[in-house]
């Protein structure tokens, strides 16, 4: 009886290990997939009146304005005078953008490996000012640990990572 119990325990542990090993290969897991820049002009900074918020990455308060980075897309500017009803006044499209900071009306933001400077003295009408080239490195893996979709260089430059469900992931961090 004792032996039976032990055998059962051993079999159960083996099953558990097998299941765990298989999980990585066959089941869907939470992980990250690359956001590729789509081959368009990656240095093109442009301004729109508004844009749908897709994948918010950073928030930033500047006076009465609320700025939100949309991962790898750019920066939304909202008039937040009344926090009960923020109103988008402009969207600055910056390919690959993930972060930024503002001082004295100037916005400094990453544009893949470059830094761009945009004058937002008038937040409703941002003005592209300058570009400092090749100051940031490219990161070819996600910040998070766990599974991720392997980078396929033929799809372009990786400009960010988004959470997703992966089936049969082959890359892990």
């Amino acid at each position: 009886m004792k032996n039976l119990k032990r055998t059962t325990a051993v079999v159960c542990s083996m099953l558990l290990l097998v299941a765990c090993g298989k999980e990585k290969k066959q089941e869907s897991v939470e992980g990250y997939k690359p956001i590729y820049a789509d081959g368009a002009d990656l240095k093109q900074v442009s301004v729109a009146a508004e844009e749908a918020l897709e994948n918010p990455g950073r928030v930033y308060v500047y006076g009465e304005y609320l700025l939100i980075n949309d991962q790898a897309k750019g920066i939304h500017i909202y008039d937040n005078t009344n926090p009960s009803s923020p109103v988008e006044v402009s969207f600055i499209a910056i390919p690959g953008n993930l972060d930024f900071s503002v001082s004295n009306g100037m916005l400094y933001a990453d544009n893949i490996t470059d830094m761009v400077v945009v004058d937002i003295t008038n937040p409703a009408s941002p003005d592209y000012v300058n570009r400092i080239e090749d100051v940031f490195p490219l990161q070819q893996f996600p910040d998070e640990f766990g599974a991720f979709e392997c980078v396929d260089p033929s799809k372009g430059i990786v400009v960010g990572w988004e959470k997703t469900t992966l089936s049969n992931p082959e890359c892990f961090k």
Partner: protein
Amino acid sequence: MKNLRNYTIVLVTLVFFASCEKEPAQGNANTNSMNQATLGEGGSMAQFTILGNYLYTVDYKSLKVFHLADPANPELLETVNLGVGIETIFPQNDHLFIGTQNGVRIYDVTNPRQPEQVSRFDHVTSCDPVVANDEYALATLRGGTPCNGNVNQLDLIDISDITNPTLISSTELLNPYGLGLAENSTDLVYICDGYAGVKAFDISNPEMPEQVMHLEGLDAIDVIPDTDNNLIVLTRQGVYQYDATNPLELTQKSVISVE
């Protein structure tokens, strides 16, 4: 009379600039107390921050210093290699707190052009933003998948001796990301606990932080406790704003939803 007014404007402007030059490290980007109109405030997950005339950025492997003396032409002055796993940057007085995947590093920027490491606080491998006030640094540790070992907690670190950061307590969390110290209280910290939502902890007893608020139903990533008791929370569903006059009971003011 018109001339007099012009002179006054010029004079005031000059004085303003002069005072700026004198205190390059005073414009703390993460306090609301001054320069509200000229300098912004980011969240704890930020990788860019401005102190006075200098922009500091971290990428996954380095800290960079840009001089903003000519605002339209930032000049890269310095690249400090930090290894890998660098994540966030938070300014506090003359120090930069850098969150990395194996700990917190503290840099002195008394000389803003040349950050100097004064100390580090090591912990297990995890993702970790950090914020600080004069007494404490607070870092969240977020483990990966259960297979990689799973530490998810808030570390409260005594930095009264900045050269020797000391762990006071670790509080268990589920999936922590960004955090922010309350604007109206030194004893309150808001924590974005990922899929578990937003939590507030009373840290008046730093050895045993006590959870006093829990807002569920959000995939919360970062938070800015703004002025006027306005709490801004970035989530995967959108950006929410709350009235935090009573931090124990947040009242939603608005949401900018993800589409």
